[in-house]
């Protein structure tokens, strides 16, 4: 430590006198760190994989709707499995059951106004509430328009038309905003297709295999200068990959 140009006592004497309030000990209920690097061996704030088992948020009807809808957003085709096969409905269920669904990080205090598109999300519904209301509304709309059928019972073309109408804000729903729902739903579907398999989607890393993303690798130094070369690195998830474990 270099020599101080002025002592602490000198500096303190410059200002107003410090009150005689009894010292309370620093930090109170906060965490105080001094004199060393905080360090707890073996500690890591690792991610929490989803737990297996039945749906935690979705009703059977909602799951049926989402299976059908995600299969239109990212369909199975010659290139490989789509969002449904990738487990995106399971992904959405666990997301909606958790902090994301509750909007626990979001500012959710009123007053509520529609606002301009540049002002972003202004619905009073949390994501979970939005899904619940919108799925109910869309199925009710289908029921009315297609003589008693639910969204999942329509033809692929009919389903695509409903989704397009939602996307473009042409489909007016009863208790929810269709375009807002579509925007959140499409984003979440892409998340479920491409996020790490520990979250329930991207099953067998089918999203990553589709495009050639090698996943949760952490060292590409040997490949930086391999300009233009197709690397064909098999994808790896945060929990490895099946080939690493002879029992799976």
């Amino acid at each position, binding site marked *: 430590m270099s020599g101080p140009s002025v002592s602490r006592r000198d500096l303190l004497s410059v200002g107003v006198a410090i009150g005689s309030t009894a010292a309370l000990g620093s930090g109170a209920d906060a965490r105080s760190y001094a*004199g060393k690097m*905080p360090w707890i061996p073996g500690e890591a704030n690792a991610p929490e994989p989803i737990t297996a088992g039945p749906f935690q948020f979705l009703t059977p009807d909602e799951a049926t709707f989402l299976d059908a809808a995600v299969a239109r957003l*990212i369909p199975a085709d010659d290139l490989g499995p789509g969002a449904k096969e990738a487990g995106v409905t399971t992904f959405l269920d666990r997301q909606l059951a958790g902090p994301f669904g509750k909007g626990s990080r979001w500012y959710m205090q009123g007053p509520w106004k529609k606002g301009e598109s540049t002002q972003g999300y202004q619905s009073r519904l949390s994501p979970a509430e939005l899904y619940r209301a919108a799925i109910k509304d869309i199925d009710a709309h289908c029921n009315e328009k297609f003589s008693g059928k639910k969204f999942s019972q329509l033809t692929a073309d009919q389903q695509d038309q409903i989704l397009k109408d939602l996307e473009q804000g042409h489909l007016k729903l009863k208790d929810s905003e269709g375009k807002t729902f579509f925007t959140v739903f499409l984003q979440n*579907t892409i998340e479920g297709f491409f996020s790490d398999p520990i979250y329930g989607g991207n099953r067998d890393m089918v999203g990553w295999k589709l*495009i050639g993303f090698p996943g949760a690798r952490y060292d590409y*130094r040997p490949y930086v200068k391999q300009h233009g070369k197709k690397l064909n690195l098999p994808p790896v998830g945060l929990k490895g990959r099946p080939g690493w474990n002879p029992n799976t």
Partner: protein
Amino acid sequence: MARKLPAVDVVLVGFGWTAAILGQELTDAGLNVVALERGGWRDTSTDFGVTFAQDELRYYWRRALFEEPARETLTFRNDQSQTALPMRHLGSFLPATGVGGAGIHWNGQNWRFLPSDFVAKSHNTQRYGSLPDGMTIQDWGVTYEELEPYYDRFEYICGISGKAGNLNGKIQAGGNPFEGPRKREYPNPPMEMAYAPTLFAQAATETGHVPFPCPSANMSRAYTNPLGVTLGPCTYCGFCEKFGCGNYSKSSPQTTILPVLMRKKNFELRTECEVLSVKHDMAAKRATGVIYVDTQGEEWEQPAEIVVLCAFAQHNPWLMMLSGIGQRYNPQTGEGTLGKNYAYQIVSSVDVFFDDKIMNPFVGAGALGIGVDEYNGDNFDHAGLGFIGGGYLACWQTNGRPIETHPVPKGTPKWGAKWKQAVAKNYLTTATIATHGAVMSHRGNYLDLDPTYHDVHGRPLLRLTFDYTDNEHKMSDYLTDRAAEIAKAMKPREFHAKKREGHYSIVPYQTTHNTGGAIMGTDPKSSVVNRYLQTWDLHNLFVMGSCVFPQNPGYNPTGTVGALTYWAADAIKNKYLKNPGALVQA
């Protein structure tokens, strides 16, 4: 009633880059320093270790490292005719919560501003005559030449990888010929270059530009900084911006300063402590300390001889407003300074699609790229163009994280079979050229307090009123057109220029380069802090960060934030402590 704690010499509000620098410098000067951070302790192996850092959903899309709007946010509107509404979740920009601040999750694109950027008003009026109506740009009150040693200091603490373009006035082959003169080379050589930036460099050269490797806070090799802290070589993992680095390869407070600072006896960090206001004695022209709240809701008064606001950009002027310090800016009269000249960045891009060139976008790093600087600042003649300022063009290869990065050609549907085919076809074979434009300050762009909405502590939210003006749109369109010319010279199958059109939107991510609100300058009538970042009103209250920028030049702000912090630390140590009082006479 807040309970009063024993006094300390210095209290730092927030604990990101600027507080880490000041903590280190001021404890070196023998002062007792306490830092108050609203978030928790974070470190590499525990919070973003190599076995789990590469988690796109958790860290970016679920915002693990960022501030929570549920606790604090701001309200936003494009202009005064609208009602500002809360930013209910993050989008356009990503402030942090927790030790290290946004210095944890930045890309590491570490630039110096141009010498002319610091005298933007006098330089541009001298060359081009009067400024457009409503433009409120100012000179900074500090020059590039004065800041050069402090830029150098920050670059060597960080271990920036790059190639000098101007050493002591001599232009250097391979570097940026437009940069201000630097006294010595970068501490580390440029990074190894990926394919897409290499193709961009060839096309830029063919079209008459001088491309150079962008200065990077991702290590091109192992590096030990002047404090004795060692960083590891970057592994090009492609999880940089929006993520913590698991490899100790990206400069951050944790990887450059904290291992030294945290061990000092005259330094204390308190986390989970949120500062609510600055206490002051206006008659004595002094701040007397801060009031903060802990996680139990208990309020504490921390008296201090020096108070430094080191929170994220707009949080500093907000805290001053909440504390009744300074004169709030009035956009009708132009009077007042606090909240004045909020600015941002205007960015656009050109996607460049190939059939046969495999880019492997996942081999990336936050500041891995090639830039050209012909169209930045006043590096080109603006006569007849109808705008001032500019920005750099760069082909970065930052990431191939697929939720975020799956480029598709123009006209592709946003979902369905055609979308899927286009994503699969183009993922490996697309390059992107980014433009990174300045935002000049404008009379109608400012910060004040919202009349309706409150944060978790019941404080009025900050209200942001901001839109791009003609100057920004014309300038950004000009940059995008130049980027498209280089894209064409790359001989792609097709390219898609994505201009920034219409009003500013708080929704899509753009950059976390928020500036202004507590601007620096030469005169208390037109600035909140003087050239040493000392407030004009209270001589022992200093304000750090990009909130002091009078307008926002066409580069990423962190390099200048770091340089200004070292410059202010030097003034506190060598001027203020010897004679506490106003360092500049009003």
